[in-house]
C-alpha cells in the first residue's frame, strides 16, 4: 500500500491538538493509580534512570578507588559492598526492566495499534512490585550493605554477615515484576494486534520484546526459586548448598546461571529491537532480512537456555559437560552474527540521515560487536581457563551491557523523545553527548581487556602496581563517560522547557506509533488502525526496481 507519513501525521503547529496522555488527568494521584501503559512506561523510565544514576555513581567511586594500587579512600569491606551493589542494582533494578518495562510499555501497544496492553491493572501491579523490590534493595543498603557479588555464590552468601536475605528478597520480588511484565506482553502481542497486523508486519522492536518476554516468563521463575533457596538456606540451614552440612556449593551456580545466562539476553534483545528500528528509519530503507532478524531473536531465546555452563568452566564441573556448553555457546554467535550483518546490509544504498539517534545506532554496531566477539575467547574452553574472573570478563560484559543495551537505550530515548515528551532536544548537544559517551566508554573498558589478559583478577580493591597504568587510563575514561551521561541528562531535561512542540512524525517513520500525535492521546488512536503493509515501507524506496516487502 502507499505510505503517506506526512499526510497522516497531525500538523505539528496545530493549536487544536487534543489533550495528550500527559495532560489528560492532573495531579500526583492520577499518576500513582494510572493504568495507561504510556504513563507506566514513563514512570518505569524515571525509576530505572534513577537507579542507573545511583549504580553509575557507585561505579565511579569504584573506578576512583582503583586509581592507585593501594587502598585509598575505601576499606576492603566498603569496596566489596560498592561493587556488589553496583552490579546488583544495575542488573536487577536497571538493565532488566530498562528497555522492556520503560520503552516496551510505552511503545508496544502503540506499535501494535492497540489501546493498551492486555492487562493494564496487572501492569500497574508490576510497577508496584518493582517499587517494593527497590525498597528492599535500599533497605539492604542501609542495613549493613551486601558483599557477595551480584552472583550470590554459596557458601559465601550463606555465611556473609551482610544483609543477604534482604537483598535476595529484593531480587526475588523484582523477578515477579519481570515475570508479570513478560506475561502481559506475550498476551498483548498475541491478542491485541490491530486488524491487518499480521506477525510478519510487526515492527522488529515488537518481535524483540516478544522474544524477551518469552525468556522472562520461562527463566525468571527459576531465579525466584533459587533465591528462595538461598534465603531458606540462611534462615533454616537446609544444607543443600552448604558443604559443611552435606550440600553442594556448585549446585547453586547451576541454578543461578540457568536463569542469569538467559537473563543476559533479556538485557540485550530489546536493545537489538531498538537498533533495528533506528537503522531502518534513518537510512530510509526497508530492513534487510526482516524474517532472519525476527526469527534469530527467537533462536537466541531458545539456545540461551542451553549454555549456562559456560560460566562454570573452571568450577570443577565434568569435562564433558564443559565441552558441550562450549559448543552450544558458539551456536548463539550465529544468529547474533546474522543480525549484525543484516543491520549493516540495511545501510547499503540507503539515504542515511545522521541525527543523534543514528549516531547511537552506529556506535552500537562497534561496541556491541566488540563485546560479542570477545565472548568468543570466553566460550573457547582452554582460553576461558585463563580469562575467567579477570578484568577481561568485566570488559566483555560492559561492552555488551553498556556498549550494547545502554547505548541502544539512550539512542531509543532520543529517537522517541518527541513522541514521549512532545519536545525536541538540541541535535548538536545530542551529538556532543554521543561522542563523549563513545570515547569515554571505549577508553574505560578497552583497557580492561588488556588488564584481564595480563591476569588482573576482578573484585580486587587493591592490586599489583604493574597494573596501575591501565587502571588509571580506565578510570579517566570512566570520568569522561560520566561527564557525557550527565551532559545528556542536562540537555534532555532542558528540552522539556522548550516552547516548540515535537511533530507527530519527526523522522518520517512508518510504524504505527508515528501515526498518532506527539505525545499520543490517552487512548492512542481515535479509531483502531487497519494495517496494510510492512512497517518499513518508506516513500524513498525505489519501487520501480521490484520491491517485495514481506507480507
Amino acid at each position, binding site marked *: 500500500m502507499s505510505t503517506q507519513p506526512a499526510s497522516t501525521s497531525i500538523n505539528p503547529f496545530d493549536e487544536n491538538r487534543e489533550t495528550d496522555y500527559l495532560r489528560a488527568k492532573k495531579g500526583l494521584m492520577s499518576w500513582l493509580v494510572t493504568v495507561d501503559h504510556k504513563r507506566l512506561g514513563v514512570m518505569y523510565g524515571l525509576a530505572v534512570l534513577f537507579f542507573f544514576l545511583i549504580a553509575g555513581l557507585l561505579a565511579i567511586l569504584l573506578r576512583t578507588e582503583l586509581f592507585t594500587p593501594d587502598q585509598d579512600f575505601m576499606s576492603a569491606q566498603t569496596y566489596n559492598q560498592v561493587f556488589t551493589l553496583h552490579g546488583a542494582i544495575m542488573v536487577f533494578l536497571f538493565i532488566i526492566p530498562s528497555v522492556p518495562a520503560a520503552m516496551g510499555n510505552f511503545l508496544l501497544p502503540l506499535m501494535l495499534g492497540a489501546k493498551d496492553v492486555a492487562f493494564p491493572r496487572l501492569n500497574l501491579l508490576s510497577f508496584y512490585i518493582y517499587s517494593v523490590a527497590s525498597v528492599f534493595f535500599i533497605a539492604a543498603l542501609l542495613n549493613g550493605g551486601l558483599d557477595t557479588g551480584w552472583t550470590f555464590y554459596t557458601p559465601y552468601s550463606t555465611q556473609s554477615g551482610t544483609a543477604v536475605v534482604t537483598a535476595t528478597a529484593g531480587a526475588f520480588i523484582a523477578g515477579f515484576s519481570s515475570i508479570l511484565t513478560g506475561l502481559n506482553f506475550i498476551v498483548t502481542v*498475541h491478542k491485541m494486534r490491530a486488524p491487518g497486523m499480521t506477525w510478519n508486519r510487526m515492527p522488529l522492536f515488537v518481535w524483540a520484546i516478544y522474544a524477551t518476554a518469552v525468556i522472562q516468563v520461562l527463566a525468571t521463575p527459576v531465579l525466584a526459586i533459587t533465591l528462595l533457596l538461598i534465603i531458606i538456606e540462611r534462615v*533454616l540451614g537446609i*544444607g543443600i548448598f552448604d558443604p559443611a552440612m552435606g550440600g553442594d556449593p556448585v549446585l547453586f551456580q547451576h541454578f543461578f546461571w540457568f536463569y542469569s545466562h538467559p537473563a543476559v539476553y533479556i538485557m540485550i534483545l530489546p536493545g537489538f529491537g531498538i537498533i533495528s528500528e533506528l537503522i531502518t528509519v534513518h537510512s530510509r530503507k526497508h530492513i534487510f532480512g526482516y524474517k532472519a532478524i525476527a526469527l534469530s531473536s527467537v533462536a537466541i531465546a531458545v539456545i540461551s537456555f542451553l549454555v549456562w555452563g559456560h560460566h562454570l568452566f573452571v568450577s570443577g564441573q565434568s569435562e564433558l559437560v564443559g565441552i558441550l556448553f562450549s559448543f552450544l555457546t558458539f551456536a548463539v554467535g550465529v544468529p547474533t552474527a546474522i543480525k549484525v550483518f543484516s543491520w549493516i546490509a540495511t545501510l547499503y544504498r540507503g539515504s542515511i540521515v545522521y541525527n543523534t539517534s543514528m549516531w547511537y545506532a552506529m556506535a552500537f554496531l562497534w561496541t556491541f560487536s566488540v563485546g560479542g566477539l570477545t565472548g568468543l575467547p570466553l566460550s573457547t574452553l582452554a582460553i576461558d581457563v585463563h580469562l575467567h574472573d579477570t578484568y577481561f570478563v568485566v570488559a566483555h560484559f560492559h561492552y555488551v551491557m553498556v556498549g550494547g543495551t545502554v547505548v541502544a537505550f539512550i539512542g531509543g530515548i532520543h529517537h522517541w523523545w518527541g513522541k514521549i515528551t512532545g519536545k525536541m532536544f538540541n541535535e548538536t548537544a545530542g551529538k556532543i553527548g554521543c561522542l563523549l559517551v563513545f570515547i569515554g566508554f571505549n577508553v574505560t573498558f578497552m583497557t580492561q581487556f588488556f588488564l584481564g589478559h595480563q591476569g588482573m583478577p576482578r573484585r580486587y580493591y587493591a592490586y599489583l602496581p604493574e597494573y596501575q597504568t591501565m587502571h588509571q587510563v580506565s578510570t579517566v575514561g570512566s570520568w569522561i563517560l560520566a561527564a557525557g551521561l550527565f551532559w545528556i541528562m542536562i540537555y534532555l531535561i532542558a528540552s522539556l522547557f522548550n516552547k516548540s512542540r515535537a511533530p507527530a512524525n519527526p523522522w518520517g517513520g512508518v*510504524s504505527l506509533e508515528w501515526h498518532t500525535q506527539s505525545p499520543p492521546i490517552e487512548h492512542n488512536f481515535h479509531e*483502531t488502525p*487497519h494495517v496494510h503493509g510492512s512497517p518499513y515501507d518508506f516513500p524513498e524506496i525505489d519501487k520501480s526496481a521490484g520491491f517485495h516487502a514481506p507480507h
Partner: protein
Amino acid sequence: MSQAHDHAHGDDDHNPFLAHHFDTMGQQAGAAKLGMWLFLATEILMFSGLFLAYFITRMFYPEMVLEAHEHLSKIHGGVNTIVLLTSSYTMAMCVRSAQTSNTAGIKRWLLLTMGCGGIFMFVKYLEYSAKFEHGMLPGKYYSAHLHGYEIDGLPHIFFGVYFMMTGLHGFHVLIGLAVMTWIYIRANRGDFSASNYAAVENTGLYWHLVDLVWIFLFPLLYLVK
C-alpha cells in the same frame, strides 16, 4: 501503512464486563486464558526448581532419603491426595455451572471445593504438628535424634526439602482459598454467566495446577520405594 477505519462493532460491545481496551468479549476471554496458561507455566517452572533439588538430594543420599521418608505419614498424605482429587472434580463442576449460567451451582460447587481445601490444610496441620513434635524439622533445627528417632546420614536435608516443597504447595492452597472466596463474593453479586466466566475458569485452572503438583509430591515424598 495504515488508515483510520471504522471497525465493525460487535454485539457484545456493550457488555458491562468488557474492559475499554478490548474490542470483543471473545478477545478479552482469550487474553485472560492465555495469560493464565502462561502464569501456570511459570508456576510449574518454579516448582520444577524444587523438584530438581529433590532429585539431586535423592541422587546424593539415596539411603538417607529412603530411610527418612518412612517417617512421613502415608495416611495423612493419602487422605490429602483423595481430598485434592475430589476438589478438582468439584472445581470442574463449578466451571461447568458458570458456563451454563447456573449461579447457584457455581456457589455450591465452590463451597465444596473450598471445603476440600480446608480439609487439606487441616490434615496438613496435623501432619506438621506431628513432625514438629518429633523434632523432624528442616536444616539446623532438625532434632529428631533427641526424640529417639535415629535416621542415618543427613536427614536434615530431606526434611528441609520436604518442608520447602509441601510448604510452598500449602501456600498455593491458601492462595487458592483466598481467590475462591473472592470468586464466591462475585458469584453472589451475579457477575458470572455463559458470556462472562473467564475468572471462574482461570481459578479452576489454577486449582487443577495445585492438585497436579500434589500428585507429583505425594509419590515422590511419601512413596519413595
